[in-house]
């Protein structure tokens, strides 16, 4: 219900400039239909692009029903929709090549060309980042810089063109978007980082898990800590500078019933390697969170299926430890995929949890001689069909790991009869 209300509010906000233009209509003479369609596309693009930032500004009321990964994917798709609308706006207008390139015309027209080219570059960079091998930090810097150009340029263009925006109500609608953006930006980039700054965390323990994962234990320093639901994640920052954008989403791996927080960080990129090196006992870190809707606390489940691979097992560990601490005895099937025994995270710990939870564990290794009870290969349809052989209507599944694993598991569980709404995922591969 809350999700529908938020989507309705989103659609209304996007449509607001167009609706006010239709109602106010300050243009006296009739114009060709393609010019009106171009205006409609431009007014819609303004709404879509202006709200893009709100989708990824970690607004808690928006994050709770959807989860950050769904919002990120939605942000990405709506960004592409914004480019299509801007493209339609430009193509339908009789523009000269110099105006298209931003080299001629009024200042408002030049601002429009700048906004259009910057938006195209921004979306192209996001869509091709992985293929072009652009590092996340560099991409994020470019993304933010281009967004900082697009939004003001769009506002200058739309207000300066004096067509529909000559009407006071349309100007109010655009002003509302601008004001909303300014408030969200201040909250996101100033108020929250400053609040985090006053709530540092101290590293109390570090351990190596598997071949390339660091487990970091953090204790709150001078504050009450974090109230989170098992499966949620935080944005981790190691720099004391509150304005630093060097932060990454990391799943919480510890029990929600404990004061300390454990994070499992895979040493896969420059940032994560440096982070593991820097976070030695005594070091400080800052956490923004919790975020995410990937949690069994919001699911009315009689049974749980947890499927994880790589560091995707971390939020599942948080779920298992939390359920243990709460004395939960619901049947749980844990399917744990890893390359081999050396790369399997928390394996001994999971084995010990068998005594405290109604837990069945299936270990799937790509390299396995069968001597320690593991299954050889990868998680596939046949394996899940063999292991999941009960009525799935009141079962909820939580899946986290490499994208290919998540796709296979989701499709298979659906085929086996698990209702689509009962499958929960957490994806960190959206950009």
């Amino acid at each position, binding site marked *: 219900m809350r999700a529908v209300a938020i*989507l309705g509010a989103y*659609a209304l906000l996007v449509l607001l400039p*167009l609706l006010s233009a239709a109602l106010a209509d300050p243009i*006296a003479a009739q114009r060709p*239909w393609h010019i009106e369609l171009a205006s409609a596309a431009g007014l819609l693009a303004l709404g879509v692009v202006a709200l893009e930032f709100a989708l990824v500004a970690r607004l808690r009321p928006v994050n709770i029903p959807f989860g950050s990964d769904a919002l990120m994917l939605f942000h990405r798709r709506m960004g592409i*929709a914004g480019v299509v609308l801007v493209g339609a706006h430009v193509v339908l207008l009789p523009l000269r090549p110099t105006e298209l390139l931003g080299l001629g015309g009024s200042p408002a027209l030049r601002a429009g060309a700048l906004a259009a080219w910057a938006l195209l570059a921004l979306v192209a960079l996001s869509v091709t980042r992985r293929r072009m091998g652009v590092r996340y930090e560099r991409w994020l810097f470019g993304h933010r810089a281009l967004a900082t150009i697009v939004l003001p340029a769009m506002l200058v263009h739309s207000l300066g063109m004096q067509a529909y925006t000559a009407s006071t109500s349309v100007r109010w609608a655009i002003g509302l978007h601008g004001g909303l953006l300014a408030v969200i930006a201040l909250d996101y980039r100033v108020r929250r980082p400053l609040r985090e700054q006053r709530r540092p965390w101290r590293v109390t323990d570090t351990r190596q898990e598997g071949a390339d994962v660091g487990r970091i234990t953090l204790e709150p320093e001078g504050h009450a800590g974090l109230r989170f639901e098992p499966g949620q994640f935080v944005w981790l920052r190691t720099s004391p500078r509150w304005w630093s954008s060097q932060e990454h989403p990391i799943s919480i791996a510890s029990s929600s019933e404990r004061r300390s927080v454990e994070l499992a960080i895979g040493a896969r990129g420059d940032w994560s390697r440096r982070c593991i090196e820097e976070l030695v006992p005594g070091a400080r870190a800052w956490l923004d969170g919790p975020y995410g809707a990937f949690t069994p606390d919001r699911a009315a489940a009689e049974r749980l299926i947890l499927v994880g691979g790589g560091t995707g097992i971390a939020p599942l560990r948080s779920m298992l430890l939390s359920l243990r601490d709460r004395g939960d005895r619901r049947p749980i099937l844990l399917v744990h995929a890893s390359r081999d025994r050396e790369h399997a995270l928390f394996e001994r710990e999971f084995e010990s949890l068998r005594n405290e939870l109604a837990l069945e564990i299936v270990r799937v290794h790509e390299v396995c001689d069968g001597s320690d009870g593991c299954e050889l290969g990868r998680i596939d349809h046949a394996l899940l069909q063999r292991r999941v052989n009960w009525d799935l209507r009141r079962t909820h599944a939580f899946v986290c790991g490499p994208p290919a694993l998540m796709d296979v598991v989701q499709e298979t569980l659906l085929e086996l009869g698990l209702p689509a709404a009962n499958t929960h995922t957490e*994806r960190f591969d959206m950009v």
Partner: protein
Amino acid sequence: MLQRDVTRTVGTLAAIFGMAAALFVVAVREREARPSASAPPSEVYARCCSSCHEESELRGALESAPDRAALALEWLEELAQHGSASGPEDLALVKWLAGPR
């Protein structure tokens, strides 16, 4: 599921926005057949007719006319003879006179 749900949501929103754009075009293209928003009745009246006629008198005549558009054109010709109407503003005046109340 996540991809499918988001794709479905984006598709639904795209359909809503597409329909809104089409309705917008249809709505604003009707400009020729309705009074201009840039020329509110009282302003038009003040500009063209207030020196000789009461506004209620003109309204009454328009409401009782069997062919409002024809009457409006007749008035326009009369205004042109008086030199009161000229240029593109005439169109707005005719629209106001001929348009629905």
